[in-house]
């Protein structure tokens, strides 16, 4: 029991420590592709440290919701990330929330974030919140359909059980899994505010979605929100890794940790390369993009219902 508790605690600390590193890796890869040197890999840690020590500047209209939102968003994202198997499956509290609960927890974080954006009473918050809920209204159903198709194949919605099933030989190549992977990557890009859906490094308010929601935040609040965004990226990469590339879960904690770090590295490099190769879409092309993901995931579920072997 104590050992299980320690392993679960280590996993929670691990995701927290690795999240800024993943963000730093993506930025470094993008910079190198642009023939710049780019900020160092540990720059996000330095940024967080700096922000934590700064004074918070609150707008005159901000309410208690604005002040507590960063902590709630961070806590919810951290709990969701702690439920995902990273270096081992079957952790102590992994049964308290399955994939549907993880999706809904991320939805709560988005809900609170959008409300905090509306709290200031300027149009920037409104633009961020309204675009974010439009993206979410298509991305969340796509995510749930992917969860359904994976759960139908693996026979459970618990991530540990799914990872174990996918790692065993019973899974095989399934068309619904391929459709699910494509759709999941699209949803992950949309939810993490990556190109082509949103530009995480933009300074133009008219092109912002996520950045417009956090425009008013400063100091320790901004640090919490940035850490939550990095955690969310890590969470999505971990979920893709544990469902679609479940290597390394059977060999003990050290092998699992090594495999996990390799997967994170590969994902970071691929994300950086992908972001550099295409341009950001117009806001009203994003529904077509996400609608395609929703259709693909719906097709995956339909195939599983209609013809059992697919």
């Amino acid at each position, binding site marked *: 029991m104590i050992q299980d508790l320690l392993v679960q605690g280590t996993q929670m600390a691990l995701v927290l420590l690795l999240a800024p590193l993943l963000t730093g890796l993506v930025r470094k890869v993008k910079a190198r592709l642009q023939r710049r040197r780019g900020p160092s890999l540990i720059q996000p840690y330095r940024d967080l440290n700096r922000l*934590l020590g700064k*004074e918070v500047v*609150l707008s005159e209209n901000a309410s208690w919701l604005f002040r507590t939102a960063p902590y709630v968003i*961070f806590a919810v994202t951290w*709990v969701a990330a702690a439920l995902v198997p990273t270096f081992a499956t079957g952790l102590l509290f992994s049964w308290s929330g399955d994939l*549907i609960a993880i999706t*809904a927890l991320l939805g709560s974080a988005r809900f609170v974030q959008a409300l905090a954006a509306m709290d200031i009473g300027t149009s920037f918050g409104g633009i961020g919140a309204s675009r974010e809920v439009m993206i979410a209204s298509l991305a969340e159903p796509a995510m749930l359909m992917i969860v359904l198709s994976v759960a139908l194949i693996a026979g459970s919605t618990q991530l540990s059980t799914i990872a174990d099933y996918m790692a065993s030989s019973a899974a095989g190549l399934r068309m619904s899994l391929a459709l699910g992977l494509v759709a999941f990557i699209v949803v992950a890009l949309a939810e993490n505010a990556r190109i082509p859906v949103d530009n995480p490094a933009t300074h133009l308010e008219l092109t912002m979605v996520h950045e417009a929601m956090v425009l008013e935040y400063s100091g320790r609040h901004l640090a919490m929100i940035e850490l939550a965004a990095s955690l969310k990226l890590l969470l999505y990469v971990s979920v893709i890794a544990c469902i679609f590339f479940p290597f390394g879960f059977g060999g003990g904690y050290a092998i699992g940790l090594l495999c996990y770090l390799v997967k994170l590295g590969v994902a970071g490099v691929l994300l950086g390369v992908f972001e550099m190769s295409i341009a950001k879409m117009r806001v009203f092309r994003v529904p077509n993009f996400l609608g395609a993901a929703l259709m693909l995931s719906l097709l995956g579920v339909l195939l599983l219902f209609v013809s059992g072997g697919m």
Partner: protein
Amino acid sequence: MIIPALFCIAALLCLSVAGAFFATTPSGRTIVYGGSLLVSIASLLIALLSIGAAPETVTLPIGLPWTGANFNLDPLAAFFLAVVGLGSAGASLYALGYGRHEHEPQRVLPFYPLFLAGLNLVVLAADAFSFLFAWELMSLASWALVMSHHRESGNAHAGYVYIVMASFSGLVLLLCFGLLAGTTGGYAFSAIRAGHPSSGVAALALLLALIGAGSKAGVVPLHVWLPLAHPAAPSHVSALMSGVMTKVAVYGFIRIAFDLVGAPTWWSAVIVLAVGGITAVLGVLYALMEHDLKRLLAYHTVENIGIIFIGLGLALAFAANQLPAAAALALTAALFHVFNHSVFKSLLFFGSGAVLTATGERDMDHLGGLIHRMPKTALTFLIGCMAISALPPLNGFVSEWLTFQAILLHPDLPQWGLKIMIPADGALLALSAALAAACFVKAFGVTFLGRPRTRAAGQAREVDRFSLYAMFGFAALCLLAGIFPGVMIDLLGPVTQALTGTHLPTQLGLEWLSIVPIASARSSYNGLLLFVFVAGSASITALVIHRYASRSVRRAPAWDCGFPDPRPITQYTGASFAQPIRRVFGTVVFRAHEIVTMPPPGDIGPARIEKHLSDLIWDGIYAPIADVVWRLSLALNALQFLTIRRYLTFVFAALVILLLVLALWQ
């Protein structure tokens, strides 16, 4: 325990009479609402005690001479009686404070206990006559309450549409019961059950029940009265109509479809699933386009009824395929959502009533910044919004999670209609959940957050303590039902046992109080642990950062890009917030389009933007029917002006035709 339940109804009837007499006195409000509160709590306790007990029947010698009036309290009736009792207790407590602002109490006070009595009677009725009598009593009492502010614009039209649709639902249910009673004419439910209707009759009766009870519950396309009538009534009555009356209509459907009709067919399940899915998505899309707070909540009720019918359709599908455990899970999910919706919808209507009292405004584009002026109302409204958007660890998430688990249970059903309809419904459910979250970010964000857009919003004050007690109580219930869902699932065990023959495994003994509806290897959820983890990590993080990093705060104006504009009119309104979604979904569903007229450069006139939305259901179904009826009545108007000889010719012709029919029949 059925006799005490009937005594409660008698007490409500007495309160109604007392309300008629004491309406204009200052203590009239206390008598009626306080009395209703006590009676509702009593009936809630009776219901909770009767859920696990054996069914009881009693026959009173009133009503039709050859059947009497049968009343029955079995687990299903007990559960719905508990829902009614809880909703009416909350509404009565709320009304103790809210009723102070009623200008014409004599139009509301006598009918309120009558409405409650009707709701209770429908649930207890055990023969067709008492059922329909109670149904009509419920409709008429609520119609009187809807018309209580008949001088306000739109309320008279709302009342008119409501009474037409209510009569339609009563008529269809009459047909349904007539069909079920058959040629033997036994109207008691026990007689109908024993009669074993043939499968054709049973299927037709289920469809009629879907139309009749569904119209009262608010399924698309029979929902048109709901967004007109629910906002027109006073807020505590709106809460009752949305939160409780729609559930009583769902009870009617469950009673007919699961109990009286016998074994369901799979294609009726397909119809219910289709209706449920379409209702869910259309309801929330309509809600997103609204800027009147109460109309938004009323359209949202339509969406939740859709979700309940999706669960009921799944239960019918599994029952038709002889899978009782799966049917029990789907039915539990639907009934849990019945409870959840009655709690959080009432809470939201109480909140909107509080806003209406404090500011006099229902239009969210005239509100804003209320979180500073009405903090307690804002907190409870926020909990209601989070619960209805199915966010963990609140209760809305649990019923949605159970519905998804039911969808995942049996992908290998043999019928093609079900193979296609069930995943389609899963997609529609997911879509409606995401859109509901968007809708409530808009509702809470535009109404309570930001800066006040009118002086009324800027001068609002917190409401009285009774309203706050009611709202805090329901908010606490939302949280408790989300953290301890096992209690609810075990409470629903006897209900599903009676209807499907089996019940979910007992949840309360499981470690850490998680719920495991099927098997622990398959799926589990622990609301308590998630709540503890989230609350714990948030508090610890805040403590650590405040202690070791920094806790200083400075106030400054908001970022304005260098173009300061202090007017709050530059904020996002409800329509602006919904514009991206209106553009994505609305162009198809509502033929939404915007017309922008810009003055030429140099002209200082204002630019205009108009948005046009058409309600395709009203234009496509109801307007043509109304048109035909109008033309028919105009044509028949000529009958008013005939001579005496023509009238006598009519009488003579009718007599001759009847005699001919009699002759041919022989």
